């Protein structure tokens, strides 16, 4: 079995708002990513994807707070670690992050190369500026970015270029896990393609050992990731390999999400998440039973009573519903 780069067990985190209310945006999430693999995370807006990305970093600051669970990176459990230690020896080096708003991820008044110096010097005390520059230039060349970018300020770069620069900076320290939160959503189609190509290249060239790719545009995931996890209201509702998750979902929410994707490959581009009637529950007061119950076509009275556990099928596929796979499939056939 391949090395597990990232293993997360029952991770739970919450926001504490200004008014002291708790928002349970990541609820007992478990996942595993092996070396050389990419995991996709999909779900509607507000279902907790970005919060999960932040929570996976193992370093928390207000308003996000750690509640319980474990994060193990390449065999090292970082959950009990001192936050300063996490920041010093884990962030950037073991696990790196590309924020959802990568457009604004760079300090507008600092030259790219100076920011790169800050990043590297934080982790390597005795490196010279010349060595840093050489390293950065080599990395940029490998990733097909012009070296002139290094001498520019973020404001002088186009959106797509800024995005790719952020990706390059994120992998400067060769992290074992890279978490990319919607790295392509705000871009035009050409730039999107370049970003996707770049992420693949990162895996192929070994600059990163594993990837978690978050998006609400499912078709993108299908081309990049090995497995897909569907999130709803802070919980995982289905986890499967990409093909099954896209073309043969089990959970009613996943089904609704992927619903309109029937023709393989062809036309995949134009398919966005289909609108499922209704809105996700307020995570300040999550429903007691199945969180999807309010919007589910197949809801039963008992769905709303107890929280529903994940079921595991043969081959490791999981989903969260009171019905068995056969029952659900039959229901789908009957429309």
């Amino acid at each position: 079995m391949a090395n597990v780069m990232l293993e997360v067990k029952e991770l739970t985190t919450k926001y504490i708002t200004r008014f002291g209310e708790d928002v349970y945006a990541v609820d007992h999430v478990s996942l595993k990513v092996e070396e050389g693999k990419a995991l996709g995370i999909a779900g509607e807006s507000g279902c907790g994807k970005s919060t999960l990305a932040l929570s996976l970093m193992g370093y928390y600051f207000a308003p996000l707070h750690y509640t319980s669970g474990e994060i193990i990176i390449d065999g090292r459990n970082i959950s009990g670690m001192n936050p300063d230690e996490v920041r010093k020896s884990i962030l950037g080096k073991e696990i790196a992050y590309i924020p959802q708003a990568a457009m604004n991820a760079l300090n507008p008044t600092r030259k790219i190369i100076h920011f790169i110096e800050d990043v590297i010097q934080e982790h390597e005390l005795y490196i010279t500026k010349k060595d840093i520059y050489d390293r950065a230039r080599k990395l940029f060349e490998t990733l097909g970015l012009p070296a002139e970018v290094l001498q520019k300020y973020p404001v002088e770069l186009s959106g797509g270029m800024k995005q790719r620069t952020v990706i390059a900076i994120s992998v400067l320290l060769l992290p074992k896990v890279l978490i990319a939160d919607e790295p392509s959503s705000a871009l035009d189609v050409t730039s999107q393609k370049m970003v996707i190509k770049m992420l693949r290249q990162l895996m192929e060239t070994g600059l990163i050992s594993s990837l978690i790719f978050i998006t609400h545009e499912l078709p993108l995931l299908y081309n990049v990731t090995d497995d897909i996890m569907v999130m709803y209201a802070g919980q995982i509702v289905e986890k499967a390999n990409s093909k099954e998750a896209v073309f043969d979902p089990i959970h009613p929410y996943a089904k609704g999400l992927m619903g309109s994707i029937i023709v393989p490959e062809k036309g995949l581009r134009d398919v966005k998440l289909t609108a499922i009637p209704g809105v996700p529950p307020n995570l300040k007061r999550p429903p007691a039973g199945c969180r999807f119950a309010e919007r589910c076509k197949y809801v039963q009275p008992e769905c709303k009573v107890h929280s529903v556990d994940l079921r595991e099928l043969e081959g490791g596929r999981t989903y969260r519903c009171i019905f068995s796979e056969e029952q659900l499939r039959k229901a789908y056939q009957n429309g």
Partner: protein
Amino acid sequence: MKGYRKYFLNKLAWFLVTLVCAFLLNFILPRLMPGDPVAAIVARMAQGMSNSSGVQAIYEQYTELFGTNKPMLEQFFLYTRNVARGDFGFSFSQYPRTVADVLSASIWWTVCLQFPAIIVGWLIGNSLGALAAYLKGGFDKVIMPVSIFISNFPPFGMAVLLMVIFGVNLKWFPTSGGYGFDLIPSFTWSFMWSVIVHYQLPFWSIVLIAIGGQAIGMRSMSIYELNADYVKYARFLGIKDRKIVGYVFRNAMLPQITGLALSVGTMVGGALVAEIIFSYPGLGSTILTAVRGQDYPLVSATTLIITLMVLSANFIIEILYGIIDPRIKAAQAD
């Protein structure tokens, strides 16, 4: 560099345009003042003289001297030529001193008082605002209301307050003048010391007002920057807070520089009032006596000098800002 040149030329053009407007207004406005200043001077000089044709002769002599009998347009060209030469004519109220003479005696007092005070106030205010944003909690809860309170204090109010507390009640500092009235300006220790002691109250009354305004602006800018996406990203790359705070405050400070350019005029105006209250021998007191004596060459020249100072300060600040903030270059380049 192309972007910056465009920015520079743009600012320079505006500087020149405002300068010309200010110059025109400076010429016209004092001449619209009611009353005939020459008649006033003559009346003062002729007190006790019964011979009315003598008075008439003096009147004509002065009119000739100051050129007030010429048409406005001609007066204007004369004025322009003279100003270019640094010749502002005679002061009416302090005749036979020239305006240039009166001004060169007072301008340095103002420059040495106001510019350090505004810069110190700006620096302290920004530091306090940044700290309030970063530390939050109790520090913020004290600094904020105090800043709002003092920044809304009229300049004369602050001057009077300091004067009453530290001058009149505690008697720590003298309440008027630029140095002891019994001293002759010289490079002696006792004179220097006297200057320093007299400097304190006007200086701090200007500083305090500036602190209040700057702290409020800096606090909200810093809070905004602390929540910026780049802060989160830098943290997740393992960069230390100390360095990130450096980014944040630099970025928060940049708009404060433009803020200074915008408010320097108001600040100088307030500071002139403080000078008057402390009878500081600077331009503030000069302009007050000039107005009282309907001394229009002096009023006109003083306002011109003040306007020139404010506009230049403004211009210099904006030029520096363009150099420091890379966003300016980028914005102009396309």
